[in-house]
C-alpha cells in the first residue's frame, strides 16, 4: 500500500461507507463469508473421518474393494472408474459455470442461458450418480458375518482367491420361525427386514465347502486384508452372531461400521450441497431467461451462485481424495 501524507483522510473515504473497499459487493462478500464457514464445517467432518481412520488404521476398509461398480458393466471389477467419471462431470460443470459468469460480464444473455443450462445438467447427473453409488453401497455385494464385537468376517474362495458371496454358498436349513405380531404382544416393535440367508445356513454352507476361508478386517504388512487358514476359519466362525448384507448406519458388510457412517454423512452432506446448488442454479437460470439481470444491468447473481458452485466442486475434490484414493 502506498503511504501518502493524507493517508488517514483517504482511508476514511474508502471505509466510510458507500464504497467497496475490497472491490467486492455486499452480496459477494457474504457469499465468501458463507463459503469460508462452510469450508470449516466440511473440514470438521473430514478431519473427524481422518480421526476415526487413524484410530482404526489397521482395520479400515479398502476403498477399491468397496466401490467397484460401473453402470451397465455387471460383475466386472471396475474400482474407481465411476467416481473418476463423476469428478470429471463436476469439474466440467464448474467450467460451464465460469463460462456463464464470463458471458455475464459481457452481458451476453443467450450465452449465459446456454452455459447455465449445461451447468444444471452436469449437476443433476452428478447427484444421480451419487444416488446410484449409495444404492450399490446400501445393497452390498458379497455379504458377511458379524461378531459380537462388531468385527466383520468376509469369505474367500481359497482355490481362486476371489471373494465368495454368502448367498451363493449358504445351504438351506429348515427352521421354525414365527413372526411376532402386534396382536400377541403388549410390547410390540415391528420386525426389520431379514437377511436373505440365516447364520445357520451360512455356517452349514461354509462347513460343506472345503475351499472357503474367512477374511478378517485386519490388514497385514502389505496393506491387504488378513486371510485365515481353513482351521482358523472354522474357529472364527463360532464367534459370529449375525449376518450382514450391505451397509447402513448400524451394520456394514465392508468392514468398520464407522466407514459407512462417515460415507453416508459426508457424501450425503456434499450431495445435499450439490442438490441445493442445482436448485439455486435453476432459479438463476429462469431469472436469466426472464431478463431480470438484463434489467438490473449486471449479472452479479450468476457470479455469486457460481462461487457457491465452485466451492461444491472444491469440496468434492477433497472428498474424492479422502474416500476413494487415499
Amino acid at each position: 500500500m502506498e503511504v501518502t501524507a493524507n493517508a488517514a483522510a483517504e482511508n476514511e473515504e474508502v471505509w466510510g461507507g458507500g464504497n467497496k473497499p475490497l472491490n467486492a459487493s455486499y452480496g459477494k462478500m457474504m457469499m465468501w463469508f458463507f463459503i469460508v464457514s462452510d469450508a470449516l464445517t466440511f473440514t470438521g467432518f473430514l478431519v473427524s473421518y481422518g480421526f476415526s481412520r487413524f484410530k482404526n488404521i489397521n482395520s479400515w476398509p479398502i476403498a477399491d474393494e468397496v466401490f467397484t461398480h460401473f453402470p451397465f458393466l455387471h460383475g466386472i471389477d471396475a474400482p474407481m472408474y465411476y467416481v473418476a467419471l463423476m469428478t470429471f462431470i463436476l469439474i466440467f460443470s464448474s467450467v460451464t459455470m465460469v463460462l456463464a459468469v464470463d458471458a455475464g460480464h459481457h452481458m451476453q444473455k443467450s450465452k449465459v442461458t446456454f452455459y447455465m443450462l449445461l451447468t444444471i445438467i452436469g449437476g443433476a447427473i452428478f447427484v444421480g450418480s451419487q444416488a446410484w453409488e449409495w444404492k450399490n453401497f446400501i445393497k452390498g455385494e458379497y455379504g458377511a458375518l458379524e461378531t459380537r464385537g462388531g468385527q466383520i468376517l468376509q469369505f474367500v474362495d481359497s482355490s481362486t482367491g476371489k471373494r465368495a458371496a454368502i448367498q451363493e454358498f449358504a445351504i438351506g436349513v429348515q427352521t421354525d420361525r414365527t413372526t411376532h405380531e402386534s396382536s400377541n404382544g403388549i410390547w410390540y416393535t415391528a420386525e426389520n427386514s431379514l437377511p436373505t440367508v440365516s447364520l445357520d445356513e451360512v455356517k452349514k454352507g461354509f462347513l460343506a465347502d472345503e475351499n472357503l476361508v474367512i477374511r478378517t478386517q485386519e490388514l497385514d504388512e502389505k496393506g491387504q486384508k488378513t486371510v485365515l487358514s481353513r482351521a482358523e476359519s472354522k474357529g472364527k466362525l463360532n464367534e459370529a452372531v449375525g449376518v450382514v448384507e450391505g451397509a447402513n448406519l448400524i451394520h456394514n458388510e465392508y468392514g468398520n461400521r464407522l466407514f459407512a457412517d462417515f460415507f453416508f454423512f459426508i457424501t450425503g452432506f456434499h450431495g445435499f450441497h450439490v442438490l441445493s446448488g442445482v436448485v439455486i442454479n435453476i432459479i438463476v437460470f429462469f431469472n436469466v431467461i426472464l431478463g431480470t439481470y438484463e434489467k438490473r444491468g449486471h449479472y452479479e447473481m450468476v457470479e455469486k451462485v457460481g462461487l457457491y458452485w465452485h466451492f461444491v466442486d472444491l469440496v468434492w475434490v477433497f472428498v474424492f481424495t479422502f474416500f476413494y484414493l487415499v
Partner: protein
Amino acid sequence: MASEGHKLVIFRGLLKFKSNQQKIWGVLIFLSIVTTIEVALGIIKPEILMGSFLKMKILNWIFIILTIVKAYYIAWDFMHIRDEKSGLKNSIVLPLLILIPYLAFILLIEADYIFDVMDSGFVVWNF
C-alpha cells in the same frame, strides 16, 4: 464491476492466455490431467510408492499434494481469487490455511495415540 482486469497468467508466468475464456479451458485441461494422473496412480498403485513417509504411504502424500494443487487452481481461477484485492484474498485464504492444518494435526496425532493404546492391549476391543 470487476469484469476487466482478469489476470491471464498461470504457472507463475509460464503460460499466458489471450482471453479469460481461453484461460478457463486451459485450467480445465490442467485439472483433467491431474485427475487422470490421480486415477491412474490409484489403479496401478506402483510398488515404488508404497513406502512409508511420516506414517503414511508416499502414494497417499502424492494424492494429497495433487488435491491441494487442484484446489488451488479451482479457487484461484474458477472462483477468481487471483483477481481479488490482496486484502480479500488473505482474509479468505489465511483463516483456512491456518485452521485446517491445525485441526488435522491435533486430531490425527490424538487418533494415532488412541490406536497405540488399543493396539498395545490395554483395552480389549476385538472380542
